[in-house]
């Protein structure tokens, strides 16, 4: 089959699946979960399609330079171009698996989750489009198109989130979208038409214009990652959410900014913007430290996980700022492992939270009654703190060493923040497993079902073998 068509299918399939989800019959009384099954099938099909797409990059040569392209001529000035290289595919594959795990986590909710699933699939579709977009027009459409489904997802998942916090967070994201729009209009106006993103740097702009354009793009992508003093909006919204799918979508949105910066940020940007780069690096490091301390201070385990995720998001952002392109694929492999681990941790955590709410018992010691969940949780925590049991370890090692190479103090601060995040994660795991246990016989706490357990073990196996070869399952 034509690879370009496959690429389009990967983008559109979640959207089509979403429409089926809306029409699926869900009866709470009879425990019918058709919507969820449809969503699972959709995401699983997408995973298979992506695995198939990987086969186009089998040769060593195409792994580095290969690109699948497809173009749609909309008007004589606009042409949507979607393309995939290995870097994009790794990101997309990780996101699909994360969403698959997230949909699994939706299982135990009491009410019909059609709205959540529909908007999650819309979000997934836009995210896939975003990762594959190669021209500025389709890139902006997908960049902005991610936000509304995410907003609806947040509201469907928990309508009790305070409006102010939600508006604050999304105001932040939409501000980024507006800045990108301004840059987008300027580029289109200068070029009098659509342009490939990697070719933007070769378009000649006046000095002032180029500052506005690159400044806009830079800030738009940066605003995907709320750095200090805005970071609190993201974590405070996350804490209110118990729906795993919404949590996964929200926590991994910042990675889309990292992706775009890694892929498209040119080395020869205007000096004025380049001068700003150290300021943002400092902000990143400060936020990293604050987030790491935040995770350490909170006793709530879910807070610890959100802070941990945020610390690693910022690590990737710092890696992007490094004046080198050699660790590009390392970032991709690390993000892939991070997505898998993070999503599993979030799903297990929200499952435990839901059980705790259902039974009215505290989270402390809850894992004593859930042997399967306990096994999975601890395996993922061990991988997440950086033990050499996944590709996460090697690739992070390289990223951190590059940061050290660039700046000693920055590297030290990063190591310190990562250690703090790891310790707080371990502390949280200890809390969940501590033997001050709950009254054993009075309440029956349900463990995760066998299917979820198998999926977790499978993901752990993928991670484990990836120590040797990150993409062993395709190459």
């Amino acid at each position: 089959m034509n690879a370009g068509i496959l690429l389009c299918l990967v983008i559109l399939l979640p959207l089509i699946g979403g429409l089926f989800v809306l029409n699926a019959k869900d009866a709470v009384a009879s425990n019918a979960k058709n919507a969820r099954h449809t969503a699972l099938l959709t995401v699983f099909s997408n995973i298979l399609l992506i695995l198939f797409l990987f086969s186009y990059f089998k040769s060593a040569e195409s792994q580095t330079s290969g690109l699948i392209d497809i173009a749609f001529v909309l008007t004589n000035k606009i042409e949507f171009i979607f393309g995939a290289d290995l870097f994009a595919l790794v990101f997309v594959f990780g996101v699909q698996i994360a969403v698959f795990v997230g949909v699994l986590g939706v299982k135990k909710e009491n009410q019909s989750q059609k709205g959540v699933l529909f908007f999650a699939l819309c979000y997934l579709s836009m995210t896939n489009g975003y990762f594959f977009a190669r021209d500025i027009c389709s890139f902006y459409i997908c960049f902005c198109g991610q936000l509304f489904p995410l907003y609806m997802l947040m509201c469907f998942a928990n309508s009790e989130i305070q409006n102010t916090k939600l508006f604050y967070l999304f105001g932040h994201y939409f501000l980024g979208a507006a800045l990108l729009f301004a840059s987008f209009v300027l580029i289109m106006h200068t070029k009098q038409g659509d342009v490939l993103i990697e070719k933007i740097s070769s378009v000649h702009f006046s000095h002032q214009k180029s500052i506005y354009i690159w400044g806009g793009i830079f800030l738009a992508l940066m605003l995907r990652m709320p750095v200090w003093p805005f970071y609190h909006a993201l974590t405070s919204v996350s804490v209110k959410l118990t729906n795993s799918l919404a949590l996964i979508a929200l926590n991994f949105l910042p990675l889309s900014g990292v992706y775009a910066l890694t892929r498209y940020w040119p080395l020869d940007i205007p000096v004025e913007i380049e001068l700003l780069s150290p300021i943002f690096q400092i902000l990143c490091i400060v936020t990293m430290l604050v987030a790491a301390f935040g995770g350490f201070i909170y006793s709530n385990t879910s807070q610890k996980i959100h802070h941990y995720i945020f610390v690693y998001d910022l690590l990737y952002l710092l890696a992007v700022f490094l004046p080198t392109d050699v660790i590009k694929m390392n970032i991709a492999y690390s993000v892939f492992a991070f997505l898998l681990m993070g999503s599993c941790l979030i799903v297990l955590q929200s499952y435990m939270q839901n059980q705790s709410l259902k039974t009215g018992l505290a989270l402390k010691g809850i894992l004593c009654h859930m042997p399967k969940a306990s096994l999975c949780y601890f395996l993922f925590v061990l991988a997440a703190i950086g033990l050499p049991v996944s590709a996460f370890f090697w690739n992070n090692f390289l990223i951190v060493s590059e940061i050290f190479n660039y700046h000693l103090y920055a590297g030290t601060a990063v190591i310190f923040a990562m250690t703090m995040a790891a310790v707080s994660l371990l502390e949280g795991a200890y809390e969940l497993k501590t033997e001050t246990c709950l009254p054993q016989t009075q309440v029956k706490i349900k463990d995760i079902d066998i299917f979820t357990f198998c999926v977790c073990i499978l993901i752990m196996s993928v991670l484990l073998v990836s120590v040797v070869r990150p993409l062993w399952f395709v190459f």
Partner: protein
Amino acid sequence: MIENIIYTLSESSLIASIVGVLMSALFSQEGKKTCFKIAQIGILFSAFFAVLFYNKTFLEGFFSASWKTTLTYCICAFSALCWLWLSSKWFVKQDASSTRFCVLALFLMFLLSLIIKTTNVFVLYGGLAFLGLTQYALLKTSTSSESLYHFAAKYLFAALVCFAFLGCALYFLSGNSYHFDALAAFLQTQSALKAAGVVLGLFCCILFFVGAAPFHFWYADAVSASDLPVGTYFALVPNMACWSVFLSLYDKVFMPFSQNLKPIFVVFGCLSIVLGAIGANATRFIRKIFSFAYLYQLGVALLVLSTFREQSAFATYLYLEVYLFLMIGVYVCLFGMRLNGAHINNLSFLKGYASVRPYVSATMVFYILCLTGLPPFIGFATQFFMLFNVYRSLWLLYVILAGFLLLLPAYFRIIQTIYFFKKGYHFDRVEFGLYVALIVHIVFVLLLAFKPNFFMMQASLF
């Protein structure tokens, strides 16, 4: 002579319909629906004749017809047909007399037809004066609130002040300078004060009817506080006609004074954007939110016009055309949203509406998304193409985007109330006809999204 009479068929079919409505009220027992049917047939015929003689007109020194005027009139006629169709449902439910309403509707269409075609400032002045008075009469048909009478009086007073100002300015004109084409040349030979008086008189008078800031004070109340059919008229029907006249003046009269008018365009545009965005956030009345959002759109259009570029007028025309087309869908939804027989205007009464009427709610959200200008919806395409083609000043672009960010919470608040608040009321059933109307409208919107050139007259903007 006969030719001239034939070319008046578009207007005379409206006059004939007025007679028909009056006759039906006098002699027929059929009731409200007959009046509406006659009015709709009259407008349909009027639009048909307008298309048939799209470049012909009577009294050529005073009026002129082109594809632009015909298109504008067709848009107005289409909006009017939708408005009357929706209003007929309201009148049947309220069991109120519709004769006066229908007569006024037809007369308003007659005036709009003249205003769109006119090329003479005195005809324009007369047309606008009659339009102001007829709109005042229409406002007075509303029975929903006592305060509306005071508001209508205020509206009349403001309109009279505008006319007095414009009248004084036009007093200085003489010779063959009444025609739009000759007016600018004539004014350039006059003293600066005289020229400024005439240009500003025309400018402010039209902006008053369009509802742009700082003359916007009447618009939100006219849309929100009046009865739903009256509010729908102000939201859908006259806007495009008045905007078309404004653009015609922009091309022929304002353009030579671009250097002097630019700051006024910018100030009024910025004011409209800011007041629109803040006003939309400050109110809890859903129709008012949309009317303030319209104010924001006008502000954007004025800022774009302030660049005085070749394609500015056409780009803003398309922008408002699509905007008003989407507003028709919004109003179909609003006619469907009822609680205990009354149409809902206060956002608080819409809590949890989606759990009871999911399709209408989903459609409303769809329209809101289109109106916000977020991609990949159609509002984005028009907004983008307008800014792309007329971009010149960076700070104007940032002002527009800042206004957009300010306005966004107001739109999202509607979505949040409909979807994410617990159901508080038992909402009435939505009529089957409204569902059909929504489906047809959505099909057109999707067509517009996938094939924008089809609706936008193969616009060279693309």
